């Protein structure tokens, strides 16, 4: 068969309405996948961009020495934007008041920050406004906390090292402040050109250099590839993910969820394509038999229909791309209020995803039923009962492999796909068994029922093979929707609970033992504080089981000391280095957000014991029973590891790698720390706290939390969108499935009408039949959804798993409503068709 003949056949079939459902299924598959991919791609780019503001750049190179010119040249050659940030602690002082205070100085070059904005205010602790500017040379901007500490106001002069500066603004927030704790001291922002004048940079000074980079992904990747070998060990390449563990886990789960949603859309659309192709093939058995009597060879039939399918594939894929693009614009405009002002343009990837999905859907799901046409006997023109043999295992094997390949490629995650498919396989076989039992039970019940129900249930039982199939298909569609709703709810709840409304947004440190009571009382009165004061001492491990720590470290060369001073303490998870000085605490009882995973928490009066964070212990090769020797303020002492803990790092509570038993640090000079929630309208309280306790340090993480909340809100939005698309795909499967039984129903209805069945009786029977199908499908869907969400939550999203009694009634009810509505609308015309016409159509 030639291409032109295939085209003509396709055109004629299209005109006769034979291909519409197939094309619609394909259109939705490609459209949904393209819309999801486009939206997710752009949203991800927006999220990354937004998250990048937390870094102040797309990537940064951190170092404890100046970043080499070669890195800069390579970056500039790739068209990347650069800005320098140099940070060091230094005393700031005011000659007028004679006061001084340790400040965390940040000197920046023009262009900083490359992502995000600086906020400044006219007076300390006031609400800030955005600014595009920077302190000019000779000027500084100060953190609110420096004003009471130095006793200065905007316009006054302060000194850093040998240089004097005019204070021109209050620095309200900076994007790359981070959750790190080098920022114990309040910030002083100045221009990098002023550094030489201060003469504070001397050999041995504790200075952190950071080169900010911004630009296209390809350029950044290319730069990273070019300098990768030179980075280690002195320089550290950081992106948003390595910079913030909280964002990392939220983005990871959001991606997993969006991919899962996309995966389900592809699966559902694939089922719809397969069902429509099957119906198309069945309706062509006679057609092919006639073609064969007219001399069409099996090869011509095969290639002809493959060509028809490919033509439909091309048309469907192109139209689907357009539809997907339109749909994603619709989604964006619907969500305009919630989305970042302008979404970045998408990459080419979504287009390829859409096109490939179309073709693989066609080949893997659509082709196998059509290949059976090759085997239609020409004898069928005489004996209509001659159906073609089943397609070979090879054909279905290829189809399955194609489908699987598509899923793995699309999700980029073999584990997720594996679980989804294993779930699907088990579900389908369990569903089939359950459906058969329900149908048998239904038939027995129907014998006692009135005529409408008897007809309906008899009808269900009569076509039990098709109906088991339909229940499985409906059940899977309803199940997938339930899964999406349940997983979405679990995810969003979990995200929101992660940052509760009153999450601590201020950290108080450096509280002297004598001040603890007074500070606690002030916090209680001012903010309703109910937290806990943690003692804190800096100390380092000097030996493990009598082996010097440095040697212990060398025996594990893969665990290098990270040259990073900022990642210890609450909020930031550092890769541990044994030699580093750590914040140690001693506690009688296990703090909230900590769970002992191995060993026992100590009882009162126990021998000196240590509790280690599990990953920290694993990375250093430390185990229960190891004896650790610490050096705290020059005094050595030894404690035995008695347990390891899992720590919720994103709890915004003070967290520690090492906790010691009370008594271990007796007599050591501890300071105390805590965290509390301060509503933004009560920010003036900080002024009071700092004036009454000037040596206390307050670290404000409110900005970061607000940011995180916004990101999570966006992600939740995207998740809901995917849910809507899965719903569309599910409906399409229902329609395709009902359409595929349309011919047989038409025949039965015509006979019933001819035998005197009233329109009312038949409509009643149809509705009852669909309602029963929907209810059965709902029951199996609930069973499947419970099993699958349990598995997904447990193993993929790592969320707590539980049963959901709320869906037990909702599932069947939803099944009844959806299947009845779609089924009735799809077959309404059949009831209205006069019986004579209907019988002639057979």
């Amino acid at each position, binding site marked *: 068969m030639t291409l032109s003949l295939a085209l003509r056949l396709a055109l004629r079939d299209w005109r006769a309405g034979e291909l519409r459902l197939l094309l619609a299924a394909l259109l939705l598959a490609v459209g949904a996948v393209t819309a999801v991919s486009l939206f997710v791609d752009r949203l991800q780019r927006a999220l990354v961009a937004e998250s990048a503001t937390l870094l102040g750049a797309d990537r940064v190179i951190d170092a404890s020495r100046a970043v080499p010119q070669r890195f800069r040249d390579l970056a500039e050659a790739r068209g990347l934007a650069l800005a320098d940030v140099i940070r060091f602690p230094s005393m700031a002082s005011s000659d007028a008041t004679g006061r001084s205070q340790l400040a965390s100085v940040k000197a920046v070059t023009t262009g900083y920050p490359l992502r995000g904005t600086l906020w400044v205010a006219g007076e300390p602790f006031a609400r800030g406004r955005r600014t595009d500017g920077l302190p000019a040379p000779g000027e500084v901007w100060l953190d609110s906390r420096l004003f009471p500490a130095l006793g200065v106001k905007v316009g006054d002069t302060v000194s850093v090292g040998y240089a004097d500066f005019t204070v021109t603004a209050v620095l309200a927030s900076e994007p790359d402040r981070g959750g790190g704790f080098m920022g114990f001291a309040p910030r002083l922002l100045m221009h990098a050109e002023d550094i030489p004048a201060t003469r504070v940079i001397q050999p041995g000074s504790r200075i952190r250099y950071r080169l900010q980079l911004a630009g296209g992904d390809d350029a950044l990747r290319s730069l990273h590839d070019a300098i990768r070998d030179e980075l280690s060990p002195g320089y550290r390449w950081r992106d948003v993910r390595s910079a913030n563990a909280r964002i990392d886990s939220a983005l990871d789960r959001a991606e997993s969820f969006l991919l899962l949603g996309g995966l389900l859309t592809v699966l559902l659309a694939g089922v719809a394509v397969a069902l429509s192709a099957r119906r198309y093939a069945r309706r062509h058995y006679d057609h092919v038999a006639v073609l064969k*009597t007219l001399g069409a060879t099996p090869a011509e039939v095969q290639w002809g229909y493959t060509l028809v399918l490919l033509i439909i594939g091309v048309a469907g894929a192109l139209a689907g791309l357009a539809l997907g693009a339109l749909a994603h614009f619709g989604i964006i405009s619907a969500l305009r209020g919630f989305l970042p002002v302008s979404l970045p343009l998408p990459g080419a990837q979504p287009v390829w995803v859409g096109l490939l999905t179309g073709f693989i859907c066609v080949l893997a799901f659509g082709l196998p039923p059509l290949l059976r046409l090759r085997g239609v006997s020409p004898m069928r*023109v005489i004996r209509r009962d001659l159906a073609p043999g089943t397609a070979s295992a090879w054909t279905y094997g290829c189809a399955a492999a194609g489908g699987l390949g598509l899923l793995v490629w699309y999700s980029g995650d073999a584990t997720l796909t594996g679980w989804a498919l294993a779930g699907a396989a088990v579900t389908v076989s369990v569903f089939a068994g359950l459906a058969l039992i329900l149908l048998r039970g239904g038939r027995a019940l129907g014998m006692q029922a009135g005529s409408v129900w008897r007809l309906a249930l008899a009808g269900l039982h009569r076509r039990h093979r098709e109906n088991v199939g339909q229940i499985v298909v409906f059940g899977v569609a309803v199940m997938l929707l339930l899964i999406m709703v349940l997983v979405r709810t679990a995810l969003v709840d979990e995200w929101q609970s992660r940052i509760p409304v009153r999450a601590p947004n201020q950290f108080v440190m450096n509280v002297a033992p004598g001040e603890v009571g007074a500070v606690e009382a002030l916090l209680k009165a001012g903010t309703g504080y109910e937290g806990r004061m943690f003692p804190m001492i800096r100390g380092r491990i000097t030996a493990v089981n009598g082996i010097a720590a440095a040697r212990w470290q060398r025996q594990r060369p893969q665990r290098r000391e990270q040259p990073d001073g900022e990642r210890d303490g609450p909020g930031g998870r550092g890769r541990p280095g044994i030699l580093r000085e750590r914040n140690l605490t001693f506690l009688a009882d296990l703090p909230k957000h900590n769970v002992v995973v191995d060993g026992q928490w100590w009882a009162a009066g126990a021998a000196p014991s240590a509790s280690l964070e599990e990953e920290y212990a694993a990375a250093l090769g430390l185990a229960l029973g190891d004896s650790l020797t610490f050096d705290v303020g020059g005094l050595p002492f030894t404690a035995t590891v008695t347990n390891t803990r899992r720590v919720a790092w994103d709890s915004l509570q003070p967290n520690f790698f090492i906790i010691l038993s009370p008594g271990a640090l007796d007599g050591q000079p501890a300071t105390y720390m805590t965290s509390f929630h301060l509503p933004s309208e009560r920010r003036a309280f900080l002024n009071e706290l700092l004036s009454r306790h000037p040596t206390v340090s307050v670290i404000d993480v409110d900005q970061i939390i607000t940011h995180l909340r916004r990101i999570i809100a966006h992600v939740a939005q995207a998740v809901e969108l995917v849910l809507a698309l899965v719903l569309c795909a599910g409906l399409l499967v229902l329609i395709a499935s009902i359409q595929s039984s349309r011919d047989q129903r038409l025949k039965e209805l015509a006979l019933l009408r001819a035998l005197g069945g009233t329109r009312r009786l038949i409509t009643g029977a149809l509705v009852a039949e669909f309602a029963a199908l929907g209810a059965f499908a709902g029951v199996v869907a609930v069973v499947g959804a419970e099993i699958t969400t349990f598995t997904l939550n447990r193993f993929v999203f790592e969320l707590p798993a539980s049963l959901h009694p709320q869906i037990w009634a909702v599932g069947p009810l939803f099944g009844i409503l959806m299947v009845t509505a779609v089924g009735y609308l799809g077959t309404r015309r059949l009831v209205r068709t006069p019986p004579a016409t209907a019988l002639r159509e057979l």
Partner: protein
Amino acid sequence: MSGCILRARAVVKRVPTSEGDLTILDGIDLMVEAGAQVAVVGESGSGKTTLLSVLAGLDLPTSGDVWLDGEEITALDEEQRARVRARSVGFVFQSFQLIDSLTALENVMLPLELRGQRQPREDALGFLERVGLSARTTHYPLQLSGGEQQRVAIARAFASGPKVLFADEPTGNLDTATGGKIADLLFALNREAGTTLMLVTHDAALAGRCADVIALDAGRMQASREAAP
């Protein structure tokens, strides 16, 4: 026109059933000259339609050989038999077997298109005109009466210029008057084209219009007689 166009030798067709093999054709031998008109008659279940299927290469016998237009079709595979059908065979069926999704014209064009003919449309229009349906070319089968559908089927059968035309109860689904007209049309076109006609029927009057009649009974040929002039 002379020479043997269709020949069957010791053709046996058995089909398996739950009660053992059922013999449908039991040792059929026949030769049909080119241009002949042969009626196959017999009661329901006597094997008429099966014989037609085997002779036309739609089905294979359990044993025995069939030659059609110089090819031993029983030795060919389905692919090759399809080519022989495309080249040499036309069909008219009791149930018309038009494709519902195609118009009358498109149904007639189909065999021409399958052969890769250059002007299928013009040729098909010509044949529709000869069966008196030039006004209904854009109608779909469901919009046509039974007689009209069979006329489209006849136009389609002759459109490809077959050497042998197999007709299976061509008037079986039609009333007497319409059936008569269809038979007239079939024989007229057949004479005009010089096609060999194999006609399966249980209608004695229709069989009587053929020169040769083969009577089947329980799968055996009872008689092969010259029909009355």
